[in-house]
């Protein structure tokens, strides 16, 4: 068989590479999950505390998703039917939370909603009870902060997918806003909202960093956080694995649900549609302005607050923060390059139409959560390698794998177009191997490669997940920031957050820009 493949010559190589990468990916993820399942020995190790974490995980994900989706409706409607200066920038900005490091956003939310934030100062001055940013309400606040923008973008796509002719027809029939809502908008929302809810639900199901920083305790521990605690504090690998098994089960169940409900594509689709419907006049103009302003303030205020707090302390950051920053940049670059190499190999093989299983393998990381993968790889590797050697390489590897599905979403359609437009021409000219990569694939796919690489680099830069499992004296920048928060050095932590945010956005911008200029 192997000899047969080789005898067929070079045109088969990308498919072979794709099969190899897909096979390795599947083996890694399935093998890791199998290690977790084997170690778990069933769910007997789980106590009432753990089942509480399961219930909380489901409850907070459901509530976060519902709040995000419902609050997004007025904002998306306002953005769909109003045109104003800065609208395009605002819609672009709605994509930014995707690459905003979670720990930075948490710093921002603490700056606004924390004990000494403006909200609580005002509440105290008015003699009202304070709002605590810690606990379940903080977890949900942070989840809405991250997922409201995503939901707005998804619902906005739904609005813009309603043909303009239909709005014109509504106008010509003399529809009022209530009629338009009934005949045009509500049917669209009924079709789009379940997918939006599910998309957010899936994200919140594997929430770790938010729960780590704002949650904890009996009433706000997610399964991911419980894995971390079992692993790190109780050294109870069996319980960590049993919890990992539960997390896998939750993800699989949610994926099963996703097969029934179409999840809309999260980004990239054209948001720059021509003129939308003319919005109704009167008090609804003010209401729309209010919705947009509130959403913008809710999203920008925390980021601006942490920036204001952090900028002055930036020059005084201790050298170990800069070392951590350099370490994180190198790791993010390694992760991005790995994700690009894996993603490009898979996308090219998929574009050549080799087997749906390759595509399935590429999407497999969605089932696995970083902490479950980390636990599993620790179980597999602990006899072989010193565990403190594992922290950084495993973080790079897992971040690359977790970024893969997002990158593939951009790369697969582009690779298909490339294959359809130029595949036969390249084949007929015997353009293959490294020459094909250099002269055809890299130049044609540069924009998508830049975008995917930027996503992977920014996600890797900001990730505070699997690294927390391992004791390490060489922390990444997000871990350093978390440590500073833990020792209440908030000025330094804010400065660290500014640095982290700046580097994450800069990495994305450099890759994306570089890809588009190439």
């Amino acid at each position, binding site marked *: 068989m192997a000899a047969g493949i080789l005898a*067929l*010559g*070079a*045109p088969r190589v990308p498919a072979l590479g794709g099969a190899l990468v897909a096979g390795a990916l599947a083996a890694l993820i399935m093998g890791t999950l199998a290690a977790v399942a084997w170690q778990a020995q069933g769910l007997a190790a789980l106590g009432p505390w753990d089942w509480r974490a399961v219930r909380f995980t489901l409850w907070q994900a459901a509530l976060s998703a519902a709040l995000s989706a419902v609050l997004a409706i007025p904002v998306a409607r306002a953005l769909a039917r109003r045109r104003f200066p800065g609208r395009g920038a605002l819609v672009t900005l709605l994509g930014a939370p995707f690459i905003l490091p979670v720990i930075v956003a948490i710093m921002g939310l603490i700056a606004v909603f924390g004990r000494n934030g403006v909200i609580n100062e005002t509440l105290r001055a008015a003699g009202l009870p304070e709002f605590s940013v810690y606990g379940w309400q903080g977890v949900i606040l942070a989840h809405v902060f991250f997922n409201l923008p995503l939901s707005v973008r998804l619902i906005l796509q739904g609005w813009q997918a309603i043909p303009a002719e239909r709005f014109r027809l509504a106008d010509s029939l003399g529809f009022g806003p209530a009629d338009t809502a009934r005949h045009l908008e509500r049917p669209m929302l009924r079709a789009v909202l379940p997918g939006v809810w599910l998309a957010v639900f899936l994200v919140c199901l594997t929430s770790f960093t938010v729960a780590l920083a704002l949650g904890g305790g009996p009433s706000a521990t997610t399964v991911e956080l419980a894995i971390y605690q079992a692993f790190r504090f109780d050294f109870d690998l069996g319980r960590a694995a049993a919890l990992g098994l539960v997390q896998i089960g939750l993800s699989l169940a949610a994926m099963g649900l996703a097969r029934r409900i179409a999840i809309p594509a999260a980004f990239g689709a054209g948001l720059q549609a021509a003129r939308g419907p003319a919005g109704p006049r009167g008090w609804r103009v003010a209401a729309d302005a209010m919705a947009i302003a509130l959403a913008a303030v809710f999203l920008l205020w925390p980021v601006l607050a942490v920036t204001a707090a952090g900028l002055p302390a930036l020059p005084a950051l201790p050298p170990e923060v800069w070392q951590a920053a350099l370490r994180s940049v190198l790791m993010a670059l390694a992760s991005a390059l790995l994700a690009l190499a894996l993603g490009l190999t898979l996308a090219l093989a998929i574009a050549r139409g080799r087997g749906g299983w390759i595509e399935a393998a590429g999407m497999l990381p969605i089932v696995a959560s970083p902490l479950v993968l980390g636990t599993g790889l620790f179980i597999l590797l602990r006899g072989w390698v010193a565990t403190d050697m594992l922290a950084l390489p495993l973080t790079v590897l897992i971040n690359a794998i977790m970024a893969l599905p997002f990158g593939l979403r951009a790369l697969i359609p582009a690779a298909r177009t490339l294959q359809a*437009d*130029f595949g*036969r*021409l390249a*084949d*007929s*000219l*015997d*353009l*293959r191997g*490294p*020459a*094909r990569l*250099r*002269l*055809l694939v890299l*130049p*044609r796919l540069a924009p998508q490669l830049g975008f995917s690489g930027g996503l992977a680099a920014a996600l890797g830069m900001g990730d505070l997940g699997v690294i927390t499992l391992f004791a390490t004296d060489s922390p990444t920048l997000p871990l350093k920031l978390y440590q500073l928060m833990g020792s209440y050095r908030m000025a330094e932590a804010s400065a660290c957050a500014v640095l982290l945010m700046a580097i994450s956005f800069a990495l994305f911008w450099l890759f994306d820009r570089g890809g588009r200029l190439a």
Partner: protein
Amino acid sequence: MLEFRDIAVRRGDFTLTADLAVPDGARVAVIGASGSGKSTLLALVAGFLPPDRGRILWQGRDLAGVPPGERPLSVLFQDQNLFPHLDVAQNVGLGLRPDLRLDPAQRQRVGEVLTAVGLSGHERRRPASLSGGQQGRVALARVLLRARPILLLDEPFAALGPALKAEMLELVGRIATQTGATVLMVTHDPRDAARFAPQTILIDAGVAHPPRPTRALLADPPPGLRDYLG
């Protein structure tokens, strides 16, 4: 000689069979209704599509398993004959070395063929800055440079106006003469067939018929062709 021996392709409702031979240096039009399998016939020769049955032979050698780039032929497609991100000289140079590491002598050859198609001085231009006719000439310059013994034309000039198309066919004729190539040209225009190709393969009802003299065929078309010509 290019031989189709007992060839059959089946894709759902679509079938194509061919059992015919094309002599060396012949210029043959391939004519038939749209969807009849004209492009499929070329794809079989080019190696983009393996036949379900039968063999394709060139000078007695079976082409099965030979990758498209190693077959003794050049192809011009309906569109996308040039890479838009490469300049004219690079697009032509690919015909000599796919990795474009050309030595000075090869570079000079690229200049010569560009002169031959009337495009000297356009080396550094990108395809997007050329007219449709000029783009066709760049692709033909590459065909000239590769000088493969078979040339497959899958309606590459269909988008051009009649005068320009005639000019391009004339250029194809010159290049074919110069390289001694056997030409298979898909067309839906009987005038192109009459002008360019002394022989014609008619594809009708799933069968590619052996080449017949074009004039005779068009003067007395069989029923399938008569329906198509109207």
